[in-house]
């Protein structure tokens, strides 16, 4: 089984994120076991429910949600990176965190890296 972990460091409004999504979807379609996507640095902004991108522009967050739903793709955000960017992660309800994303620490990145045959950064 080919296992892949992906690190995303670009924000949802960056056009670089489109390539990350295209790559991850191509991997899933090819039957690769994508064991998780870890959102670090500005990538953590993907989990912010309050981000609103004009409807005629690329909706990166919706696409991640879709991949999460269709393929049960695990999406992890780094808690430190998220809080630094105004996403409140410590409340019990985590109201501001998009449900498709799991609030994790850098330890999750260690786990993904240890388990995956390949690690690809975007």
């Amino acid at each position, binding site marked *: 089984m*080919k296992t*892949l972990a992906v690190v995303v460091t670009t924000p949802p409004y960056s*056009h*670089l994120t489109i*390539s990350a999504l*295209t*790559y991850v979807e*191509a*991997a899933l*379609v*090819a039957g*690769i076991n994508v064991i998780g996507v870890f959102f670090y640095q500005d990538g953590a902004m993907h989990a912010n429910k309050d981000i609103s991108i004009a409807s005629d522009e690329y909706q990166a967050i919706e696409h991640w949600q879709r991949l999460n739903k269709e393929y049960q793709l695990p999406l992890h955000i780094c808690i430190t990176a998220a809080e630094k960017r105004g996403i409140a992660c410590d409340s019990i309800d985590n109201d501001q965190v998009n449900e498709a994303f799991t609030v994790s620490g850098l330890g999750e990145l260690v786990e993904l890296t240890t388990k995956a*045959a*390949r*690690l*690809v*950064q*975007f």
Partner: protein
Amino acid sequence: MSTLHLVRQSAFATNDFAQCLSVLDHQDSIVLMDDGCYNLKHSLMDSLIKRVDGTLSINVITRHAQARAIEISAAVQHIEMSDVVELTFNHTKVITWQ
């Protein structure tokens, strides 16, 4: 031991491509994507193409180059994102230069 290099920045703006080339091994492959496509017209590319001995492969994502009105060059392979997934597992690791 071979590396897949994903080059995502223009060498006219950053040193990322030059740094990539400085660690390049003869079994490696390069994929130019996003603004990395502009490197097709950079002088670093000319010297790289002269260096290529048949084992190293240089690829560009067709769509990314076409979107930027970059002339298709015969010296490089034209690929899709699904090919990048395949290349990921044909090499032992991936380095992203962005």
